[in-house]
């Protein structure tokens, strides 16, 4: 493993991943709380294969160096394939929501800083539980959500607009 200057690193061009502002901010929070403990992956030319979003966040919080693993024995095609497959594989696992929520509840840190919804428990509860949660609450609706632009499909037959 190496420690590399962020100013020496090259971001991926045409990255298959995109990093919304919300993610970068959560990554910054993570670095502040836990440190930069997960090394990025770079190639022999200091191109960041995995960790582009994390490097962006590190720069934002003023880090001058980051830990990195260097791969030197992959062909260009293998590198490009690795980037895609590595990201797909990280994404592939689901959550045990019951355990997730019990952990979030037990941990005394504000987990919303790292992207967890405080209502993440909603995802495991049955329909009637959701009903219970929202029972007797009035919610104001934002009518812009129902503008024509906000529907994915238009029926070719009757013109009805709807989401898939």
């Amino acid at each position, binding site marked *: 493993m190496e420690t590399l200057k962020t100013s020496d690193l090259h971001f991926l061009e045409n990255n298959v991943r995109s990093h919304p502002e919300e*993610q970068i901010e959560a990554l910054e929070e993570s670095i502040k709380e836990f440190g930069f403990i997960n090394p990025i992956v770079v190639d022999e030319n200091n191109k960041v294969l995995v960790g582009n979003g994390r490097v962006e966040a590190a720069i934002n919080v003023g880090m001058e160096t980051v830990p990195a693993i260097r791969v030197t024995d992959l062909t260009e095609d293998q590198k490009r394939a690795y980037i895609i497959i590595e990201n797909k594989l990280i994404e592939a696992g689901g959550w045990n929501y019951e355990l997730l929520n019990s952990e979030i509840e037990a941990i005394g840190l504000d987990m919303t800083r790292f992207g967890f919804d405080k209502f993440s428990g909603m995802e495991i509860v049955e329909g009637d539980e959701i009903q219970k949660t929202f029972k007797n609450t009035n919610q104001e609706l934002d009518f812009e959500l129902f503008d024509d632009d906000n529907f994915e499909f238009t029926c070719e037959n009757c013109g009805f607009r709807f989401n898939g």
Partner: protein
Amino acid sequence: MGKIADVQEVTLTKLVPYARNAKLHSEEQIREIADSIKEFGFINPILIDKDFNVIAGHGRIEAAKKLKLEAVPCVFIEGLTEEQRRAFILADNKLFELGDWNDINLKTEVEDVSFDFTAFSVDGGGTEENEPREIACPRCGHKVGVA
């Protein structure tokens, strides 16, 4: 705040998975991680604390077992409290999920790269939602294929 104390190969049997790990790893995912290790090597190290408690890499450890590897590269992390360690196990996974795919770049890359993706769940169309399917209009029932 945590920091990296050391990097070394650690015998698989020494590693202690987190018993309350909320992240799930399907058989298919483990198989694909194993295929990826065979193709590219074990690149991304496992994160552990000084007592060999796993902080990140549960799926990769399962894949390493499948491949009958004896040891895997590990990064020893020091300076995290018990609470921070538990939080990071979750956050590390969640932070990735906050990102998106750039479907245009993904499609171009999958088409351009000379690599056989068939062993992996990579379709070049981004997430599964983007696979072609047929949907019916909720009002009139007219069916239309969507990309």
